[in-house]
């Protein structure tokens, strides 16, 4: 779980964030401004500052936000000058947009706001539909508008080319003012409240964000066009409301609630993917007539509200279909505001002490949670403060606080500016001359809280209390422009004004005794910490829209012990690594010495306990080897025995009955090559392969009654297999990693003869052992760096542990095992047939497929009957229409075709008699394994440089390239054996989204774009890790490439039809090669290693008992002079999905390599 942050504003308008992994409120990096409101999403935070302007804080990321501007240059041929800019009068502009209707000269394209910058100058796009065009990027046609081709023909009278230029959003990690360049008449009046949400209405690549705002006059505004690539949006548009709105809240999905000045709530209806603004309002009455609603907050399926008497209410029965819900339930506690964040978690600010409270125990089944728990962590500034504060300063600090209390007490009388006064609270004691300077002073806050605090306190000391009365006046006059003119009874002041009054009273009321103490004599040292001025921050606003707290996760927000300064606690909580290493190292060392001392000279002594046979027996079910295939009850026994040499071996016996006769089959565990868990919704089963069973494509399948029972057996058998093969602990850096289609991870230790020229080990004899965790893709390098990508595109790095998942106890390492989760979607299809009377209905022909089915139509899958893939998975969303299916959909997600099964398209024609749409539902799996998340960028593909075992690779960083889930190409910096996760991403610009990338041993980077074209990256080297530019490589004719893999010198690519291609003609001087040569079909994945060995995952592999999909295969006969090899060697499968042999540089035996040298190497260009 990566850390995310909670945003909050204190009474003084300072914005803080609190990380889910943190223990301190951190002051927002950009502190130029005080804020009234913030509303956060995961990547950004919107806020209203004290100048009533809207600001946007976009968190920094290694991947830039970039937008492509395009313009077309149009030319017509004439006999005089050939192609030239002179067009016919009826023609389009010579510089236009894609339609040709809009004039678009290059120098007329401007940046939309000061927060953008150009990435480069305009250049011509030479890529045309995945294929490189002739130089100049011109495409030709007979006339405008027409279809263009890249070749010039005899009748090509016009041509055009595309110019592109990227702009980049630059105002990150800073509050960027949203420019208001709307029509002055339409200009919204000052804003009073704002809420962001709606990011779950549309998925990527749209990635839209709904931003709603309320003006001081009670009007509601919607920000158009806000999305990830356009964080600022384009303009405000007014949304009519039935009354004056005070406050608004937008949930992550389609809930939008607002409060009316009269105390009712407004609920927006009709929000959907195509209409994120919704269509109408409904009114929800407050829980009681005497106390209207003051504040609401919406989540995915909850709404929380505060009434004017501060009571907290939970709205029952709220969801997409019924956004108004059914009834109110009163909750415990009095709050000034509440905020619902991700996963429907709730935060509130208490009336009583102005602390932020977190609602504990909110789960999907219990959305109202259990109790409010105060977040008592300190602020970053307190931490530095507490350690060094001298008693004198603290006493002064304390004194200042007392004065402040009485100072603010007088504040409510100046009603016009009171809220500002509150916010200016801490600065009141400033002498007047420093007020003018206060901006600078706040600027220095960012440099170091310590530095700025002390002078402040000194000034507080120096400042006589009598000047208090005037100072706030001055500050409000100087600094607050907006609210100065607004009447005090405006509703929003209910929240901001009233409470500070109470709070400011409170310290004054609570402190008299201690004040007395301080006047009595020197302030006792021990008292200063709990009552220190800053120890108890007073909060005004909190936003959890970017804060992902998993139900049941452990937070460290509630554990600061009173009286102990946080910094001290921090130190004492854990032992420093150096110490840890010392005691542990000594124990390891002493145990080794002890064994040496007590055993070395006495090995000939007899053992007191003779090693005996141990038998574990149990009841399982076995998938019968012969027809009729079915599960039969069997007794199983695992016999383990130890030979005199201490070697272990085990036999698994399976006893079954045939015609009342007891029979058995047995398996020697030293022959088992892999144990694969096969979990489905019905059975906890696993498959056991031997080389022979692998060739037959028919494993021994066993099922247990419970998951625990299966895990016990699996762990025991796996341990026995590992023991008989003496495989133990962490896999070697050369290990071969693979992943099954269920996401299970397997690793195999390569023996030296795995890649030998002669007498090579058949790959069906490789022993695979399972590693905990769940991944879709895994890539390794011979220096022990292993990365994986989950189904949810999360990037993971291998920690060096082993075990996890179902492997507990001895089969798992103690350290380096972490929780891991993954999310994937289950898809079902709704099918309909057209009939002349009623149109499309769910009544099909008798011959038709099920009206609710899987993708093939053969299996009935209804929303109610479809279950998660196995018991490990749980649903985490409701069913929703998937619009991202290939072929496109209409507005409601339907795809049309003339009949089932057929190719579908996203629009209806006269000939379409059937239609279908895809429904998806997300499910989640929680497991554990030796993996740590590499946050925050989600990946689609990753590749690590293969290195030969003897390479002098030590020292320099390991090149790692990746493609993000959005298609950005990235290069990881700082990856090494010691820091396998690396430090940061370097973004490599591309003109289109990419799909796959691979880096070869000599820094040859190849990549495949989503449109199926291939690219070669020039000049990549250790000193220039990102290279300089892309060279477009034409794809094999009429094929769209999907994956590429580069070894030492060989380059292989896969296309969408499962063809494997070898890049021929690569030489040191011409690294792009000359042509693609077809090698094989039925290939799903390819992995080329540092010895140029070629391994694939293949489909349709014939076994003696059946055909298998997803089989690990090795290319035979690959030699320097014959890099394409001949024929395949079939290994483990089916059901395998991915393999990486890129860490295995284990060389062939010595005499072989000499022979190889004598023959001379193939084309090598390093």
């Amino acid at each position, binding site marked *: 779980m990566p850390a995310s942050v909670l945003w909050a504003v204190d009474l003084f308008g300072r914005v803080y964030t609190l990380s889910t992994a943190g223990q301190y409120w951190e002051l927002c990096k950009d502190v130029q401004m005080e804020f009234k409101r913030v509303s956060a999403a995961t990547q950004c935070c919107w806020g209203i500052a004290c100048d009533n302007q809207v600001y946007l804080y976009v968190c920094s990321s290694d991947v830039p936000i970039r937008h492509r501007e395009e313009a077309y240059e149009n030319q017509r041929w004439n006999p005089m000058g050939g192609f030239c800019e002179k067009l016919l009068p009826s023609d389009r502009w010579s510089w236009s947009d894609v339609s040709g209707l809009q004039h678009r000269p290059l120098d007329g394209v401007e940046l939309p706001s000061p927060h953008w910058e150009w990435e480069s100058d305009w250049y011509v796009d030479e890529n045309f539909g995945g294929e490189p065009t002739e130089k100049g990027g011109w495409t030709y046609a007979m006339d405008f508008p027409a279809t263009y081709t890249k070749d010039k023909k005899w009748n090509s009278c016009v041509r055009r080319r595309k110019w592109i230029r990227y702009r980049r959003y630059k105002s990150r990690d800073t509050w960027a003012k949203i420019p208001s360049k709307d029509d002055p008449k339409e200009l919204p009046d000052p804003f009073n409240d704002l809420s962001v949400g709606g990011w779950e209405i549309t998925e990527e690549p749209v990635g839209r964000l709904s931003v709603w705002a309320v003006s001081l006059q009670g009007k509601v505004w919607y920000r158009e066009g806000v999305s990830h690539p356009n964080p600022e949006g384009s303009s405000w548009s007014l949304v009519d409301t039935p009354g004056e709105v005070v406050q608004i809240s937008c949930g992550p999905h389609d809930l939008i609630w607002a409060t009316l000045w009269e105390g009712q709530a407004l609920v927006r209806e009709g929000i959907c993917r195509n209409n994120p603004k919704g269509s109408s309002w409904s009114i929800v009455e407050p829980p009681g007539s005497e106390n209207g609603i003051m504040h609401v907050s919406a989540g995915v399926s909850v709404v929380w509200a505060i009434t004017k008497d501060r009571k907290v209410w939970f709205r029952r029965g709220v969801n997409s279909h019924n956004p108004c819900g059914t009834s109110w339930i009163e909750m415990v506690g009095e709050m000034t505001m509440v905020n619902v964040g991700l996963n429907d978690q709730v935060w509130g600010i208490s009336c009583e002490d102005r602390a932020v409270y977190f609602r504990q125990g909110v789960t999907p089944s219990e959305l109202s949670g259990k109790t409010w728990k105060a977040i008592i962590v300190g602020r970053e500034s307190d931490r530095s403060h507490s350690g060094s504060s001298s008693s004198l300063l603290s006493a002064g600090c304390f004194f200042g606080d007392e004065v402040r209390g009485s100072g603010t007490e007088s504040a409510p009388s100046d009603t016009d500016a009171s809220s500002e006064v509150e916010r200016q609270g801490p600065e009141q004691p400033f002498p007047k001359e420093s007020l003018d300077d206060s901006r600078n002073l706040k600027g220095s806050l960012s440099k170091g809280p310590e530095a700025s605090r002390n002078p402040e306190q000194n000034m507080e000391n120096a400042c006589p209390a009598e000047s208090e009365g005037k100072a706030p006046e001055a500050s409000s006059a100087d600094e607050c422009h907006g609210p100065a003119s607004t009447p005090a009874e405006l509703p929003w002041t209910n929240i901001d004004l009233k409470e500070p009054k109470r709070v400011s009273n409170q310290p004054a009321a609570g402190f008299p005794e201690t004040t007395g103490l301080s006047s009595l004599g020197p302030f006792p040292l021990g008292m200063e910490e709990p009552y220190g001025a800053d120890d108890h921050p007073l909060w005004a606003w909190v936003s959890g829209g970017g804060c992902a707290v998993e139900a049941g996760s452990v937070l460290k927000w509630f554990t600061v012990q009173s009286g102990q300064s946080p910094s001290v*606690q921090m130190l*004492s909580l854990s032992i420093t690594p150096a110490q840890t290493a010392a005691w542990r190292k000594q*124990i390891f060392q*002493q*145990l080794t010495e*002890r064994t040496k001392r007590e055993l070395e000279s*006495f090995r000939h002594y007899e053992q007191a306990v003779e090693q005996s046979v141990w038998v574990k027996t149990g009841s399982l079910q076995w998938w019968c080897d012969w027809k009729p295939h079915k599960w039969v009850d069997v007794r199983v026994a695992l016999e383990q025995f130890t030979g005199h040499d201490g070697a272990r071996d085990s036999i698994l016996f399976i006893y079954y009955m045939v015609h009342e006769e007891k029979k058995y089959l047995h398996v020697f565990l030293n022959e088992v090559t892999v144990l694969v868990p096969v979990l489905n919704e019905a059975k906890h089963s696993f498959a056991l392969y031997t080389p022979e069973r692998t060739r037959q494509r028919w494993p021994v399948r066993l099922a247990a009654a419970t998951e625990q029972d299966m895990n016990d057996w699996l762990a025991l058998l796996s341990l026995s297999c590992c023991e008989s093969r003496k495989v133990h602990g*962490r896999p070697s850096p050369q290990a071969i990693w693979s992943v099954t289609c269920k996401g299970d991870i397997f690793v195999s230790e390569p023996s030296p003869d795995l890649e030998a020229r002669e007498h090579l080990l058949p790959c069906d004899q490789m022993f695979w052992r399972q590693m905990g965790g769940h991944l879709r893709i895994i890539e390794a390098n011979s220096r022990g760096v292993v990365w994986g990508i989950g189904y949810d595109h999360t990037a993971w790095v291998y920690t060096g542990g082993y075990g996890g998942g179902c492997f507990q106890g001895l089969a798992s390492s103690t350290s380096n095992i972490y929780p891991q989760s993954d999310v994937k979607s289950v898809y079902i299809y709704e099918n309909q047939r057209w009939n002349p009377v009623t149109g499309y209905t769910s009544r099909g022909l008798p011959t038709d497929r099920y009206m609710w089915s899987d993708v093939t139509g053969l299996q009935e899958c209804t929303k109610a009957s479809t279950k998660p893939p196995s018991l490990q998975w749980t649903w985490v969303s409701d069913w929703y229409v998937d619009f991202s299916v290939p072929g496109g959909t209409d507005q409601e997600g339907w795809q049309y075709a003339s009949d089932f099964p057929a190719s579908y398209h996203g629009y209806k024609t006269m000939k379409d008699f059937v239609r279908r749409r895809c429904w998806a539902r997300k499910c989640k799996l929680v497991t554990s394994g030796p993996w740590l998340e590499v946050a925050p960028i989600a990946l689609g593909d990753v590749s690590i440089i293969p290195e030969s075992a003897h390479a002098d690779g030590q020292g320099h960083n390991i090149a790692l390239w990746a493609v993000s889930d959005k298609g950005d190409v990235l290069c990881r910096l700082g990856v090494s054996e010691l820091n396998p996760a690396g430090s940061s991403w370097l973004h490599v610009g591309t003109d289109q989204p990419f799909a796959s990338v691979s880096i070869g041993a000599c820094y040859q980077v190849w990549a495949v774009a989503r449109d199926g074209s291939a690219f070669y990256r020039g000049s990549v080297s250790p000193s220039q890790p990102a290279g300089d530019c892309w060279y477009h490589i034409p794809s094999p004719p009429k094929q769209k490439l999907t994956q590429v893999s580069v070894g030492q010198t060989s380059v292989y690519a896969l296309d969408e039809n499962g063809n494997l291609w070898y890049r021929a003609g690569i030489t040191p001087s011409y690294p792009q090669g000359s042509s693609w040569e077809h090698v094989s079909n039925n290939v799903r994945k390819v992995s080329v290693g540092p010895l140029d060995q070629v391994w694939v995952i293949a489909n349709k592999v014939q076994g003696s008992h059946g055909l298998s999909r997803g089989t690990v295969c090795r290319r035979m006969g690959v030699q320097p002079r014959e890099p394409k090899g001949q024929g395949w060697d079939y290994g483990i499968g089916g059901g395998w999905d991915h393999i990486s042999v890129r860490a295995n540089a284990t060389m062939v035996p010595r005499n072989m390599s000499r022979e190889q040298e004598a023959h001379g190497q193939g084309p090598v260009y390093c």
Partner: protein
Amino acid sequence: MTDDKDVLRDVWFGRIPTCFTLYQDEITEREAEPYYLLLPRVSYLTLVTDKVKKHFQKAMRQEDVSEIWFEYEGTPLKWHYPIGLLFDLLASSSALPWNITVHFKSFPEKDLLHCPSKDAVEAHFMSCMKEADALKHKSQVINEMQKKDHKQLWMGLQNDRFDQFWAINRKLMEYPPEENGFRYIPFRIYQTTTERPFIQKLFRPVAADGQLHTLGDLLREVCPSALAPEDGEKKNQVMIHGIEPMLETPLQWLSEHLSYPDNFLHISIVPQPTD
């Protein structure tokens, strides 16, 4: 890279080379040769000395054979202490092999318990386990186990089957993730210099302020005499399984990794050898 799991293996497979000699006053028919054996540190004397018994019985008349007992340098060896503990406590500074004298006569009733059969060892072992789990988990884990799990623990020890034993024992070593360790650490501290057989008190793995207790904390609390004075020289060795863990070692870690199979940390305080 060494993993903590390897410690469990090292602890389990600890062996003490031992030379058994028949007591000189025992009446034999023929001369009894000394008998050499590798004794598992984690097991119990009467559990692993069937061969010894058989060897010496061969040299003796049937009527002279009664209950076997062992003695080292005049001290009768308590069979209900793990072998490793007996060795660390009594013989750690002497040369190997460990010379144990075998007796069949004059059973020292006031020093030793009778051990009529292996059932007695099992009963003792299981009661220690239960006591340990009472300290660690209020007996919740051991009580939730089935009879066959208990049997597997015992058989694991008896047959010297590390994986068989640990397949079950790991459950006894777990604790809720929100805690930082067990409720109390099951430990016993033995000293040769005192009359008291051992010290056992309630001691938590984590201090009230959240700090992990170390071996040093434990000794300061329950056995301060074992520790060297601030300035003085080290007088005692603090031994578990024949090694001296640093006093900074967290107690919880020790309990998880250096406990004997009965789930207790048996800590020996022995005088620092002078040479």
